[in-house]
């Protein structure tokens, strides 16, 4: 990992915004097995699962505060470090593609339903590459600044709609059982690429990392649960008929004579998309540059940008291709492997070495 340092506030602001994007653009098909009120329950549960998933990482980094998972692996086995670097890059690349594809699905459905504006996603990737090129300090600072408008938009939605909540819209908790709620929460935790980001980039953050992590988790759970609470209370069953229910919720938020402020509110979410794509590309660029030093960061980023553009353009033309790529199980496996299993293995190996 590069030697640049950012504060934990900046780091977790970035993670806060990147995770919010996933919340804003969630699709009800992910939660089809549970009732409406369970959305709120699983919103809290998923973050508890995230905490549990991060336990190996916590102990591993307690011992090696200035090394990320790849550095730790490289120390033990240089070739293994290379293999893992490519694997982590591939995982991050997969998440980049799914993020951009979902964003394209979102904009194609909501903003440009009548026009083919595929160049928008190329634009997104281009700006993402630029952000990645500028480095983590720039991204961290941008994240802190972006938190304000994004939070303001969120508060606006909740504040304007809280009066429209109908308590009859809530369903009994665990109506379909505990297991579907747990499964949904687990899938949601699997879509949390931020856990992988922490595994790779936490040494970059300077400050009280554990405390900041828990504050992040708490705020994330609070925001997500509040959003779902308002969403279910206001829209009820209408939630499950919409491809992007949070956008429909934003469409209901009125202020004075302005009836439809959803383009502005959802436009602000684009800041989250930018940060997510940039950070993912930055991490990939950083990892690959360290392993393949003969390639400059610029070249690597350009290559990643071009490749992801081609793949995303291919996926953009078809909802079916999107559903194939955006696979919850694949994401869960990828996240679990990179954020939990591999760190756990390294923890065990390190402990064994210490014992020996």
């Amino acid at each position: 990992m590069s030697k640049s340092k950012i504060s934990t506030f900046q780091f977790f602001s970035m993670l806060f915004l990147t995770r919010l994007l996933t919340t804003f653009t969630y699709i009800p098909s992910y939660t089809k097995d549970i009732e409406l009120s369970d959305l709120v329950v699983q919103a809290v549960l998923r973050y508890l699962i995230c905490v549990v998933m991060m336990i190996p990482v916590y102990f591993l980094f307690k011992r090696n505060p200035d090394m990320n998972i790849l550095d730790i692996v490289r120390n033990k086995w240089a070739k293994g470090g290379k293999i893992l670097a490519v694997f982590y890059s591939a995982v991050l690349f997969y998440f980049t593609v799914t993020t951009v594809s979902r964003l394209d699905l979102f904009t194609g459905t909501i903003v440009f339903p009548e026009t083919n504006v595929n160049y928008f996603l190329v634009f997104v990737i281009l700006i993402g590459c630029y952000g990645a090129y500028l480095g983590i300090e720039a991204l961290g600072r941008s994240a802190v600044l972006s938190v304000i408008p994004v939070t303001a938009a969120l508060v606006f939605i909740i504040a304007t709609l809280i009066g429209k909540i109908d308590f009859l819209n809530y369903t009994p908790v665990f109506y379909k059982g505990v297991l579907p709620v747990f499964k949904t929460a687990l899938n949601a935790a699997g879509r949390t690429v931020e856990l992988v980001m922490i595994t790779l980039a936490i040494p970059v953050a300077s400050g009280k990392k554990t405390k900041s992590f828990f504050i992040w988790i708490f705020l994330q759970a609070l925001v997500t649960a509040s959003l779902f609470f308002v969403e279910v209370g206001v829209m009820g069953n209408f939630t499950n008929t919409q491809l992007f229910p949070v956008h429909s919720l934003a469409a209901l938020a009125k202020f004075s004579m302005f009836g439809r402020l959803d383009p502005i509110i959802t436009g602000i979410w684009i800041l989250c998309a930018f940060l997510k794509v940039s950070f993912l590309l930055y991490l990939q660029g950083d990892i690959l540059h360290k392993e393949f030093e003969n390639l400059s960061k610029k070249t690597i980023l350009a290559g990643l940008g071009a490749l992801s553009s081609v793949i995303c353009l291919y996926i953009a033309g078809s909802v079916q291709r999107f559903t194939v790529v955006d696979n919850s199980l694949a994401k869960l496996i990828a996240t679990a492997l990179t954020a939990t299993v591999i760190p756990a293995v390294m923890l065990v190996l390190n402990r064994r070495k210490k014992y020996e």
Partner: protein
Amino acid sequence: MKNSWFKKRIEEITVQDEKSNKEKVRVSADLQKNKAYFKQQLGESFDVKYRDCTVSGHDFVFVMLDGMCDHLLITEQIMFPVINTDFSDTNGDSIVYKAADGVSASIDKSITSDIDKAISEMLSGNLVLMAQGAQFAVLFGVQSFAKRSPDEPGTENQERGSREGFVENFKDNIAMVRRRVRSPVFKIKTLEVGTTSKTRVCVCYMSDRTDGKLLDDVVERIKNAQLDIVAGSGFIQPFLDDKKASVFTCVGTTERPDVFTAKLSEGKVGIIVDGTPDALIVPHLFIENFHSLDDYLKRPYYAAFVRTLKIISFMFSVFLPGLYVAICTFHQEMIPETMVFGITSQESKTPLPIVAEALLIHLVYEIVREAGLRMPKAVGHAVSIVGALVIGESAVTAGIIAAPMLIVVGLTAVSSFVVSSLYEPVAVMRFTFIIIGGMVGIYGIMMGFAAVLVNMASLSPYNTPFMSPLSPTKIGAWRDLVMRESWVNMGKRRMEISKMK
């Protein structure tokens, strides 16, 4: 791409400026040789005057630039004492020393053996005295040339505060600053920039609070600036700016000595360039574009109000046209019911797409603005009449543009002058956002905004983040961000820019 096609084309029509490696030429003991050297270097310039005289059997020559010296001072304070000095028992180099001693101590005097330096000083308005047999020349500071008296700066209007502004002469500028900082901590380093112009540049700082590294960095950059002529402070500005490309500059400018002094008191470094009234200040933060001296002279609540107004105006001037285009093209649902009929019916009459209409009218506005800036004052009124009537009303009547678009342009134009220091980036970004808004709507504008934001966040001139104290967040500095604390509290502890790193 060192030998790229474009570079070769540049090399075809330009000449590399090389620092002179000329050997030092000593002042000759032969007065005629010295005079001949002067004439060889300066040619037949009519303003170079040579005044010969013989005193006590020794030949002297006074060399000066007509129009840059005070002749009365020369006659009374220099020539008269020299002519009345007895040099009969003096020989060689001591002649010039005795001549210098005879002149009043109130006149700046220096002695040099370098004839090129003597020429250079003579060209700066000094009087050069050389004598037969002496291998030194005496330089007397007798500059007097036509200069502007301090006047209120045209680009930085304030309601309260002094009406003084910097002038072209750097000594007068330094004097204005000295009057405001009567403390030995205010120091100046003088440098020469420009191979041909040899413009004097004063690097000003306060020794008890300016970071040594910052000062050294600034001095180094100025020294390494490869320039032939320095026609204004803008020539030096790029050398002081952050290396990353950005529409925003990390170098502040001011024409006001009070503002200059206040910035220096924060530990910043100021640069005064001879021949230009614009002083430079580094490092310059983004938020400072919204601060003005009036904020500190008025009540804090009003300062907060005005700063907020400036920030809103800045947002309007950058985003309003792009947002209007985006809303009318992609997000028509945002238009309130009461306005949709008016906007639709008027926009449907215009021949161009909305994005083209916006680009066209903003281009016309920039033309009118630029014309108003360059046009002689006598005909300036004609421009405003042409702009308002011809472009405004007639264009709408003829159906070329719609009235809502005109309102947008008007509001944008007025807003852009609230923060005039940011006019350059605002003008460029405005056009960019209009095009982006027309292509990909509000989402594109937000992506563009994100790109600008990350670019600004990446700037760290002199290790000071450009977006400080917003990001990285320095809560302590928020006492003077948008809200300002009263001087009763703020005066207890001063802000230092080195703490922003």
